[in-house]
């Protein structure tokens, strides 16, 4: 097994797609050129993906430098920049330390019940970030500002690092560590000089994912009273719809995201992490723990589970009891559930279908054009929902009135935001479907489209389903783009939850939160089992 497809699977396991396109086996396709409809769809999608960035550029140009500089170079923007920077610089290292420690404990030690702890370390993903925040704010109303923001962010997002690190740790060849030891390295030095460097890819990838979530999240920070660019853009939006001040803040935020992307790709390096050699690697040796060691080692997973799962679930339970049957105002909640399922279902289907041509191109006909197209999609997905939504609101009002405030626009936003989730998953699936089969179908007289449909996509169906599930999860918990773009009268679970918490009616918000958690649970389980499978166990 080469490192790259495995890495792709890992990306699937983390549920997001923000790694650079991996190199895949370059077996050329039967046809000389990819079919026109495939290239055309890919190019169209990439152009769409560039729309938000292009929009900010055009607005900046139209606004004129004097106003732009007045709006960008002011103390408030400095404040927001410092806040955002502090949040990122504190949260990411904490998440890395927690992720590595938990991964090591559950994968490399004889920690009692390590399977359960591993599942519990993944489970916080099923609780949407703003529900974490809701739980903490109702538990300790005085929580606010940077420390609170860091606390809640770490609890909500550390699984994004834990999952890929644990999966990689499971796959490492212990022979390399043996070599280190035989050369006289102490255990700690082996960990630092042999194991840790091999975890560089999952750490970088996971950290990028957490970083982008920190920049994009609105609900979590609005509730805990911590101002970031995203909350400030929303404030401006409330005060002026899509005025230049909101758009310029969005521009700065977009630059921050691009900065993170660049930083990650330069830190990732080009080292080779694949194992070469005959046979398979043996099972890694488990670190023995003394009784005292065991009880000490249990402190971390117990604390983490209490804080990241216990607090949200207990608070939610309390509010559900406090609200009683009255809070389950039947029709309203059922309607929100139905609309959420519909939007998420159609969105997931649409996004996965749209990902087919791009994924096929990247596996079967890689080249400079394809790489360019793919990076466009990655850049778009790194932009926060509020930025994408602001661009789409203005563009549809001005140039595409028939789709303004329709389901089409909100689905388009979902497509731009979540396409890479479907893409990585699907790409892995197509890469595993032998090109020879597709070629044989062609030689038996099938058209390229038929060959793709009847052979390759059938084989790639499980990965497509996993990708679709990931998109579904993203849409279920999406707040800002839905608020701005959805048709009048739309109420999803997320926007319903938000409307209730804005009025401090925490009890009425609880049913919405519970339903979101319940919807997310199976998908979180899927992520967990997929990351186990990646490691071949």
């Amino acid at each position, binding site marked *: 097994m080469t490192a790259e497809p495995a890495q792709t699977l890992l990306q699937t396991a983390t549920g997001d797609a923000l790694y650079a396109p991996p190199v895949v086996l370059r077996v050329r396709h039967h046809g000389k050129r990819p079919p026109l*409809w495939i290239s055309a769809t890919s190019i169209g999608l990439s152009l769409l993906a560039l729309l938000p960035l292009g929009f900010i550029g055009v607005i900046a140009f139209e606004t004129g430098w004097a106003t732009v500089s007045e*709006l960008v170079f*002011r*103390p*408030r923007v400095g*404040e927001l920049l410092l806040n955002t920077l502090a949040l990122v610089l504190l949260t990411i290292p904490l998440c890395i330390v927690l992720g590595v420690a938990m991964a090591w404990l559950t994968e490399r030690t004889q920690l009692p019940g390590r399977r359960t702890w591993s599942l519990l370390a993944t489970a916080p993903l099923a609780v949407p970030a703003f529900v974490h925040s809701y739980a903490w704010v109702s538990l300790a*109303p*005085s929580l606010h500002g940077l420390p609170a923001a860091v606390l809640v962010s770490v609890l909500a997002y550390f699984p994004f690092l834990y999952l890929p690190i644990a999966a990689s740790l499971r796959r490492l060849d212990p022979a390399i560590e043996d070599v280190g030891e035989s050369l006289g390295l102490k255990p700690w030095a082996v960990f630092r000089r042999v194991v840790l460097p091999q975890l560089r890819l999952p750490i970088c990838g996971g950290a990028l994912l957490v970083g982008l979530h920190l920049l994009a999240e609105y609900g979590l920070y*609005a*509730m805990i*009273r911590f*101002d970031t660019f995203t909350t*400030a853009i*929303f*404030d*401006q*939006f*409330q*005060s*002026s*719809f*899509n*005025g230049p*001040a909101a758009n310029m803040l969005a521009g700065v935020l977009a630059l921050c995201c691009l900065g993170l992307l660049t930083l990650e790709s330069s830190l990732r390096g080009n080292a080779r992490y694949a194992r070469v050699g005959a046979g398979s690697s043996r099972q890694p040796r488990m670190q023995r723990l003394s009784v005292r060691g065991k009880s000490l080692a249990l402190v971390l997973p117990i604390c983490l589970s209490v804080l990241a799962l216990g607090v949200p679930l207990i608070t939610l339970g309390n509010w559900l009891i406090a609200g009683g049957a009255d809070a389950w105002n039947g029709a309203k909640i059922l309607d929100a559930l*139905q*609309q959420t399922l*519909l*939007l998420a279902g*159609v969105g997931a*289907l*649409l996004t996965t*279908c749209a990902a*087919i041509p791009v994924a096929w191109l990247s596996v079967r006909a890689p080249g400079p054009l394809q790489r360019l197209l793919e990076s466009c999609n990655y850049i778009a997905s790194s932009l926060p929902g509020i930025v994408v939504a602001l661009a789409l609101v*203005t563009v549809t*009002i001005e140039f595409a*009135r028939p789709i*303004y*405030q*329709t*389901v*089409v626009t909100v*689905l388009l936003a979902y497509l731009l935001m979540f396409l890479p989730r479907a893409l990585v998953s699907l790409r892995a699936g197509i890469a595993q479907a032998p090109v020879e089969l597709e070629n044989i179908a062609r030689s038996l007289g099938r*058209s390229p*489209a*038929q060959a*793709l*449909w009847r052979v390759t996509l059938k084989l790639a169906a499980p990965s497509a389903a996993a990708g679709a599930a990931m998109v579904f999860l993203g849409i279920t918990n999406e707040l800002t783009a839905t608020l701005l773009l*959805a*048709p*009048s*009268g*739309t109420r999803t679970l997320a926007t319903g939850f938000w*409307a209730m918490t*804005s*009025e*401090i009616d925490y009890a009425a918000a609880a049913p919405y939160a519970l339903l979101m958690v319940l919807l997310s649970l199976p998908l979180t389980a899927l992520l967990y089992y997929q990351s186990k499978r990646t490691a071949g166990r």
Partner: protein
Amino acid sequence: MSLNTSSLVNNALFCAMLLATSVVYADDGIVVYNAQHESLTQAWVNGFTQETGIKVTLRNGDDSEMANQIVQEGSASPADVFLTENSPSMILVDKAGLFAPVAPSTLSQVESPYRPAHGTWVGIAARSTVFVYNKDKLSEADLPKSLLDLAQPDWKGRWAASPAGADFQAIVGGLLALKGEAATLEWLKGMKANATPYRGNSTVLKAVNAGQIDSGLIFHYYSFVDQAKTGENSKNTSLFYFKHKDPGAFVSVSGGGVLASSKHQEQAQALLKWITGKQGQAILKDGNSFEYAVGQGAQSNSKLVPLEALDAPSLDTSRLDSKKVVELMTKAGLL
């Protein structure tokens, strides 16, 4: 079988979208851009629909957001009716010439101070500025004499507000109309130094009640709404009305208007008439919104300090300038 994959996929997608569109977006009737409290408008709409059979779809948002949105949508706005919490946003839409004249029979239902003379929109409810304070932290002697005092250094770190909300921005609009641009900017800069920003007036009330902060500048009804429920977010607080025509005694008029571009003029006018009429205003008195009624002869909830007793500054409502307010607040670093 020779199915073309791309057309198959396209067809499937098209059907799916159509399905989604039809389910989420199926209704006719009128669309209300609603910046009022959702529960209040929902009560109005329920009563209206029950009586007339006209279906109403709400799009909920914030005053200024929706006013700017309507202006940008221009003559093709999907909105038929616009309801706000405060009048600056009505003025913004009015200035763009997007309102149709309100039916005279509706205008005559509303007391004259609560509607502009030219009759392109009408007041639907009113609310008063109030200074809410924690009884354990402040005594009556400590209270400010005027809204302007809150910008003084001795109030640093002692009061809260929700600067991103339209309610607070309406209060600043009143200040701007009474005291002018320079004084307002100066006051806002003092506020930036002194006040703790929260999101939403209910959050401010909750924080004051919990003693996280001494006091807050909000509208009157949040506390009454909470008292009517459990009182858990207001039991430690008291309300202080500035009165004496102080900028802090500002009474804000919630407005309603029919868009000139509406293709359902008759139904839209009917809704406005219903809201300002007997039944609509009775919902203000008997419901749990605790906003003031503005209809001719309509009573407000008896728990409220009567509107006449508030001694509000007399202000020409058409002078409230929301754009300028946002500009000044952005300049002061509050937004």
